């Protein structure tokens, strides 16, 4: 059950980050003659790798929320710059490009956190509904 949830979380993070990154990519680099097929697969690979990195560091027991966010953020930047920029040669290491990528990642990260919060809000609403049902049952 716990594993199913983890895998589902991994897929949610990959898909939502991929969607946001693709939209930003199309918006910022849409007219720069980069083959879209190649870019799609590379971006997906980087998003998947980032999700796996977050998934793995998630096992480190950390109570502090800011520290957890900092680690997630480091996961994102290390994976994108080392794997995406270094191994896959996704972008050149020029200041302008690095700043653009930094901005894209920040927007994508905030977007993914928002998606996760919405999912958790739905779960909380389900639990609250059950609590209220339980209380009504007891009153009846």
């Amino acid at each position, binding site marked *: *059950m716990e594993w199913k949830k983890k895998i589902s979380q991994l897929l949610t993070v990959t898909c939502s980050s991929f969607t946001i990154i693709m939209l930003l990519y199309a918006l910022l680099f849409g007219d720069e003659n980069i083959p879209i097929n190649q870019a799609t697969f590379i971006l997906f690979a980087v998003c998947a790798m980032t999700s796996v990195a977050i998934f793995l560091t998630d096992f480190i027991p950390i109570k502090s*929320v800011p520290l957890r966010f900092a680690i997630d953020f480091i996961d994102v930047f290390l994976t994108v710059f080392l794997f995406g920029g270094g191994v896959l040669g996704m972008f050149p290491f020029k200041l302008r490009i690095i700043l653009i990528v930094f901005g894209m990642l920040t927007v994508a990260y905030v977007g993914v956190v928002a998606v996760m919060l919405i999912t958790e809000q739905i779960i909380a609403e*389900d639990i609250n509904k059950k609590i209220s049902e339980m209380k009504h049952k007891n009153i009846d």
Partner: protein
Amino acid sequence: MKLFIEQSEQYTEAEITIKCGMIDGRLESIISYIRLNMFSVSGVKDGETRVISLGDIFYFESIDDKTFIYLESDVYECSMKLYELEEQLEKANFVRISKSCIVNIMKLDSVRPMLNSRYEAKLENGEKLIISRHYLPAFKSKFGI
């Protein structure tokens, strides 16, 4: 559903027997209610020991190797360890929500998500507890989610 009550001087201890084909939701809530009210734990406060019904307990918390029982506005010390309580209360309306806390789900008011996959549980007396992500699946399954 039929209810039989036999009252006689010959019985020294009350005994509840439920005869049924299968346990449905209604029966399950009756059984939970009986479980909640038939067990009790001893708590000590200011040197005095009191027997506390589970139905009055909001939550148990372990601090520095000591276990405390939290009622609506009172706190008692309990001689049992948190893991012992967890085992005994597994089938009652109690669930572990963190390394140091077991909560009575009947005393919950609401839950809300926090950042970092944790939830905050608000109790009927206004107190707030943290549900850690490790214990979240067990907490959700207590509600059939």
